[in-house]
Structure formats: C-alpha cells, structure tokens
C-alpha cells in the first residue's frame, strides 16, 4: 500500500483501491450473497414476499436431495465432468510434451496456430459444427458408411457426443498450462534419465509429470469447472438421456419460474466446483499461488 502511494500518489491509489473494492464487493460478493439469499427462501407470490411465509429454510436444497431425477443428473454431471477432465488430459499431455520438448520450432508454431484458429469463433458456433458433423445424416456417418465401418448410421448425440464436444471446447485450457510447465523442463534432464536406462514411462512418471504438476493441476481444475458449468455442449450434442445439471438450473429459472430453487441448485454446483479445486490442489500438493502463475 505504501509502495502504491509512493508510486501513484494518494489520489490515484485511492481510485485503484475503490475500483478493486467495487469489483470485489459489487461484482463478486454481492451476487453470490444474493444467490444464497434466494436459495434459502421459498418461492412466493409477489404479494407474500416479506410476509409471514417468507422465512429462511433448507427446503430448496432438500428438494434436490429427494428428487431422484435431478439428483442423478447432478451426480452424473460430476463424474462426466471428471471424465471430460481425464479425457482432455490424455489428449493434451502427449501433445503438450511434443510441442514443448521435441517439436521443431516451425512445426510447433504451425500446430499451435492450427489449434488456436478455431477458438477465434464463438463457442456456440464451434459446438454447432460438431452438431452438424454428428448429425444422423451428417458427414461422420456418411464417411463411416462409405468406408464400410458401419452398416447403418449411428446416433452420436448423447453422452459420447457431449464428451467429444467438451474435450474439443476445453483443449486449450488444458494444453497451455501443461505446455508452459513442460517447456521449463531442461532437455538434459530427460536425456539424463534416458541415459541412466529409464524407460519412456519412467521418464514421464518420475521426471516430466512431477515437474509439470502445477500446470497439470491448473489444467484439470479449469477443465473440470468449465465442463461442470457448461451449457452449450450438452444442450446441442446431448440427448434426453444425457442432460446436464446446468440445463436443470436453466429450466428452474426460465421455464419453471422458480428462481429460488434455481439459485439453490446453482449454489450446489458452485460448492461442488470449489470442493474439486481444493481437492485437486491438495492431491497435487500445489498451492493456489502456483496455479495463479
């Protein structure tokens, strides 16, 4: 604080502090507190708000716990998001290693460009592209039929379609943190391990992954949170059998007209994501400041 005042003067420093304060209190804290407030109140007619019926209770949360369809969709969202995280890691780790350690500079920049260009388009349109590819009479089925791999067209929408769509949508959030951390690994370390007789598997488990674990943890946290909070991919690529928890929340707000229950569901999702972040960091023995880097 003293350093800030010395650098920018009292006026400007006060302005900065005010801005940060507004951002924290007005844009982060207040909406979340309002959501908690909503979540704990019953859904009432406008006339009853503030009346004797408007008391705090855990009814909305209890409703989720006792409603088997919603509960199952919630649990399914949790493990499916974990699966998306795992699949994205499996795709990204070898790619990140190749980009950071073995690729020639020109090949690396070319592949990097090819990965980034699709992200210039908005997420809805990118998911729509998969929607077209996966269509029953779409290009993927046509190709597989022509190659003789399939005898009749497949229905791709559903769990598989959602998984593919999400892995694709979040690939860069996993790739870049891992790439950054592997790039800082000295090449001679990998060579030394190989020279001492280590197999490729051992080089990765003992040298590369421990070195890159902050980046891996960051990528996993990002991907999990994005997947759990995703709406577009399940809405477009899902089927009735593969509904996502975010869709239920959406329905409470915009179709059920019950903002209180919607807020309660959203709160549960938020708490879940926080828990996953903290658990992952604990698991990888990484501190929050490492991730912020």
């Amino acid at each position, binding site marked *: 604080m003293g350093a800030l005042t010395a650098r920018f003067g009292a006026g400007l420093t006060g302005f900065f502090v005010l801005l940060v304060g507004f951002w924290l209190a007005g844009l982060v804290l207040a909406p979340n507190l309002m959501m908690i407030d909503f979540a704990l109140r019953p859904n009432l007619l406008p006339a009853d708000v503030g009346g004797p019926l408007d008391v705090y209770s855990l009814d909305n949360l209890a409703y989720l716990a006792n409603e088997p369809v919603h509960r199952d969709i919630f649990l399914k969202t949790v493990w499916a998001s974990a699966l998306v995280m795992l699949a994205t890691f499996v795709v990204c780790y070898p790619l990140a290693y190749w980009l950071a350690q073995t690729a020639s500079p020109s090949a690396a920049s070319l592949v990097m460009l090819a990965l980034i260009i699709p992200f210039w388009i908005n997420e809805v349109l990118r998911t729509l592209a998969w929607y077209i590819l996966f269509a029953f009479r779409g290009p993927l089925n046509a190709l597989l039929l022509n190659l003789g791999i399939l005898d009749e067209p497949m229905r791709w929408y559903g769990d598989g379609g959602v998984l593919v769509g999400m892995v694709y949508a979040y690939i860069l959030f996993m790739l870049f943190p891992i790439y950054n951390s592997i790039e800082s690994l*000295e090449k*001679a*370390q990998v*060579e*030394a*391990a*190989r*020279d*001492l*007789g*280590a*197999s490729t598997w*051992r080089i990765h488990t*003992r*040298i590369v992954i*421990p*070195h890159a674990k902050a980046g891996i943890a960051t990528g996993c946290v990002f991907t999990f949170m994005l997947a759990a909070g995703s709406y577009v991919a399940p809405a477009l690529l899902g089927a009735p059998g593969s509904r996502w928890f975010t869709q239920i929340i959406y329905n409470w707000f915009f179709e059920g007209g019950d903002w209180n229950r919607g807020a309660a569901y959203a709160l549960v999702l938020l708490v879940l994501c926080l828990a996953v972040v903290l658990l992952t960091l604990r698991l990888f023995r990484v501190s929050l400041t490492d991730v912020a880097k």
Partner: protein
Amino acid sequence: MSHSVALERITMAFGATKAVDDVSFTVEPGEFFSILGPSGCGKTTILRMVAGFLAPSMGRVLIGDRDMGGLGPNQRPTAMIFQSLALFPLMPVWENIAFGLEARGVPKAERRRRAEELLELIALPGYGDRKIAELSGGQKQRVAIARALAVEPQVLLLDEPLSALDLKLRQHMRAELRAIQKRTGVTFLYITHDQSEALAMSDRVAVMSAGVLQQVAAPRTLYEDPATPFVARFVGETNAIAGRVAHVADGIAALDTAHGRLSARAGAGVEQGCPATLYVRPEALGIAAADAPSALGARVERLDFEGAFGLLHAVAADGAPVLAALPSTALGAAPAPGEDVRFAFAPRDAVALGTAPGEA
C-alpha cells in the same frame, strides 16, 4: 576386450555441413581420454554419438568391441555427465544417485545401500536426504559423478562438467576426477575446450578442429611434438615464424625467414624448397649472446610479471609478436621496454611444420 571405445571412420553430417568428418580413434580400458577443441569442432557431437543420442551418418561406434548401432542411450554401457549436470531437482540426493538402479528394477533397500556407498566414494556421507538445491556447486558436481557411476558403466562420458565452476574449485575437481577415475578404473571420455584441463588430467588427448581429428597423443607429446599447425597453435602458447625450407639434415631443418636462417626439428610436410612455419614455445626462448649465429630480433613492448616467470612481449621488425617466458631468476638482466633484444633457442626445442596452401 581390446578397446574400451572404438570409433571407426565416423562422419556426422547435418544437412550439407559435416560436424564430424571421417574420425577414427580408440580408447583403451581404464584410460582417461580427452577430446580437446574449440567450440563447434565436433567434440560434443562425438560424445553424443558414443552416448547414443545421435546416430552417425557413416561409420561405427564400438564399445567393448560390441557394435552400438541401433542401441539407444538407455541400452548402452555408458553414463554421461552433462554440462549442466542435469540433476533431478525434485528428488533428494540419494534418489538422484540411485535413479539408474531404480530404472533397472533394483529393490529400494538395495538402492539406498548403494547410494550410501557412492556418497562415501565422493566424500559426502550423510548427504542422502538433502535436496539438490541445498548443495554447493562442487557438491552437485560430485553427486552427478556418483549418479553416473551408480549404473557401473564401462565408459563414463563427461561433457565439460567443470565449466560452470570457479577457478579454484575447478582445479580441485580436476584432481578429484582424476582420483575417482584411478580408484574405479572406469574409462573416462572427457570433452573440453580448456587445454590446461585436458593436459593436466588426461592419459591421452585427441585434438579436433572443424570436425577433423588433428592428433591423438599423450599431453607431453602434443605439447612438444605437435603434428599439425593447428595443434601447435591451439595447445599452449607458441611463436610462429613463417619461412621456406633451405635444407633438411639429420632431422633438423634450416629455414630462411625474415630473421635470417633458423633451425628446428623437421616435422610433417617439411621438404627442401617448401614453405614451412617454425614454432617455438615462449619458455624455449632465451636472451641471446651478442655473437649468437641465429636469433630472433625484436623490440620489447612490456614485461608481465607472473610470479615464477615473467612474460616478455616483443614485436619483430615485420610486426609479428614475439612472446618469451623468462624465469624470474633471469629477470634482473631482462631488457627494458623500448630496447631491442635478440632471442635465441636450441633447434631441438623448436619444430618446423609444412605450411598447407592457404595457411599463413
């Protein structure tokens, strides 16, 4: 087993450039063998081909008479000490040392025991549980040696491992490396651009320039009997005097030079009438008696006192620098800057080598 390492006509081309050009030599078991050359001479490329990180474009690498073609670095009986050392910073010291044993599936208790033994060898007992970051430069150096020795290699490959250390520590580590080599009997193949390092530690030295092997010899032979002009200039200080061979008799060549007729041992490429260069070491020069028949005339520029000897910098009439090292005991009679001086030397202490076309 006849040779520890044998290189047979190795060539390594990167595109159109040959980093290593038709190099052959052998290293004997238990030998401390150095490859000496300026940066970019191909010495590191050779080391990486022996280690298995690179495959030669042509030629064969044999270790213990076994052809290493097609074997990766993890399948060769070699261990390398990297210039950066490449210790694993996330593992404690003992796991670093035992990493090669871990890769070979040795049980943990046995690995720990071997690591402790090696810590004794490198005089760091009780350091097993330290972190790498807690070690000093010299200690890291020794841990890197122990880690390489743990896999009991037939050949230890060292890529300028002392270059990051300060002078005092470097000199200390030279002696230590030499001692460890004698104790373990492992063949050392050592890469360096520092000639004093190569001369002080090695049984034999290979000198390389621009991918070509210049000479393989014991350090004293390199110094006293260089086979090529490059070796004469690169190994130690020397004075080079260009001339033409007047005649050769009994292994002594007489050259006509700007200083008149000078005599030296006749080396490679010295034939009557050919251009040749005479090389004489600074310490072989002495102040000439007034009536000396042949001598180098020069004007003294300055005298650098270095303790045991003084370095007399002078310039000949044709502008060529002349360097003489005079023992401190003889400095009382040394000429002052600005004076003319005549240096003499015994023909046995100088060598004449034929000048290849294009060379000065």
